[in-house]
């Protein structure tokens, strides 16, 4: 396996690790987005809360999520290391650089954009993931009317075993569940938090407008027939649709839900 270690130490190998982890994180973004779109459902958060229980108890997903945390950390620290390493290749800086004449702003600022994303991820995980796992999260008792499907939510201060309990009683399906939706609702009452989320999604958009197509180039996947398609997916899906839908969540809660 000598070849592997010399490959990974080479400048091309180092970049390959960024591309593979970066693309894995792109697939994660799509999954995370699809799940969280349930926040927009008009059900007082029932579907979202059930989804949160599923995501934190299913063993396969738990396993994948630890891989994901490791990937984020690796990509972030490796990226910062590369920025530092590449600075060493030009020990004396130019007095004047006309960067915009030959390259895109995002491509020259991947480290800065990534750092904003990293700060965001840390705060985001403390606010939701750590709170859900270790903090005080209220329980909510949902009454789903079995005849007309109407959902009413009541605060619950009893004790249940685990994060969720479901049963049927007097024509109602009852779901008593740890209420992450309430945590979300509460967090996004703060306009500063919402502004920070929007800025972070802007940084993500620019990181991926360059990063998505760059990863394909790093992997050697450059072909006249597909280059434009790859670029368009990078801009359209990861530069526009994904960040806008993510940013819409805090904005929606700030404006419409209290």
């Amino acid at each position, binding site marked *: 396996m000598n*070849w*592997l270690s*010399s*490959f990974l130490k*080479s*400048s*091309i*190998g*180092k*970049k*390959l690790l960024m591309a593979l982890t970066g693309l894995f994180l792109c697939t994660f973004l799509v999954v995370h987005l699809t799940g969280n779109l349930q926040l927009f459902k008009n059900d007082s958060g029932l579907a979202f809360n059930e989804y949160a229980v599923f995501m934190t108890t299913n063993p396969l997903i738990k396993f994948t999520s630890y891989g994901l945390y490791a990937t984020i950390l690796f990509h972030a620290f490796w990226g910062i290391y*590369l920025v530092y*390493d*590449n600075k*060493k*290749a*030009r*020990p*004396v*800086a*130019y*007095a*004047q*650089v*006309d*960067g915009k*004449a*030959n*390259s*895109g702003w995002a*491509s*020259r600022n*991947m480290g800065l954009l990534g750092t904003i994303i990293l700060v965001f991820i840390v705060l985001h995980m403390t606010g939701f993931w750590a709170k859900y796992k270790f903090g005080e999260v209220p329980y909510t008792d949902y009454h789903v009317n079995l005849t007309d499907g109407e959902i009413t939510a009541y605060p619950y201060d009893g004790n249940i075993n685990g994060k969720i309990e479901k049963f049927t009683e007097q024509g109602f399906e009852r779901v008593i569940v740890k209420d992450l939706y309430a945590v979300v609702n509460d967090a996004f009452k703060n306009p500063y938090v919402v502004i920070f989320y929007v800025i972070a999604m802007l940084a993500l958009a620019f990181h991926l407008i*360059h990063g998505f*197509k*760059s990863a394909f*180039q*790093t*992997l*050697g*996947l*450059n072909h*006249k027939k597909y280059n434009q398609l790859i670029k368009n997916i990078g801009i359209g899906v990861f530069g526009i649709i994904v960040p806008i839908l993510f940013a819409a969540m805090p904005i929606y809660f700030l404006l419409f839900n209290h």
Partner: protein
Amino acid sequence: MKITLKVWRQKNTKSKGQFETYKLDHVSEDMSFLEMFDVLNEQLINEGKEPVVFDHDCREGICGSCSMYINGRPHGPKNAVTTCQLHMRSFKDGDIIVVEPWRAAAFPVLKDLSVDRSSFDRIMSAGGFVSVNTGNAQDANSLPIGKDIADEAFMSAACIGCGACVAACKNASAMLFVSAKVSQLSLLPQGQPEAKKRAIAMVNQMDAEGFGSCTNTGACSAECPKEISLSNIARLNREYLSASVAGE
């Protein structure tokens, strides 16, 4: 036209260096940038000062030696030209022009604007060749090569080793140069037997020289006087990956 020049002066590799300001009052628009420097050097010599050292040879865009980083861009404000092909009509009367050497750990400044690019030579000696027995030249058409492949190899072979790609890159990466040199050979049947060895050897040498890695900003290709394509870098990535995995 009148021009103010801010030129990097540096005694030798070890010394620190600084900008000096010079004023030129009679610059013709038809002069090339290097001719304008000739005028400056005449002026300096007449004043009993040391002329500015800069590299140049062919003065027609083929040798690649005229390395000057002008107003924040290698070879100045025009695309697809070298400094010797840049004319003063690309500037305005009264302009202040900042001229620096290529800046990279792997291109140490020798004096003023002249840098040592022998790191490129060492990369070439590591693998930028095909080993063939000399003898009579082969019949021209005995190895059929498709026109598209021939064209692509030719476009890669247009690289003149000027180092503008390194100078332009925020990481001082030599990937465009190395990828062009790998491509011009590996695209052709003559280059294939050594393709794997070559990719590994040239990339290893490139890394040993202290060039940075590639962030795919595209600055290299945008500033390359021969407009070498980024698709070469993707090819080098592929070749290096497959050579690492499948080579001996």
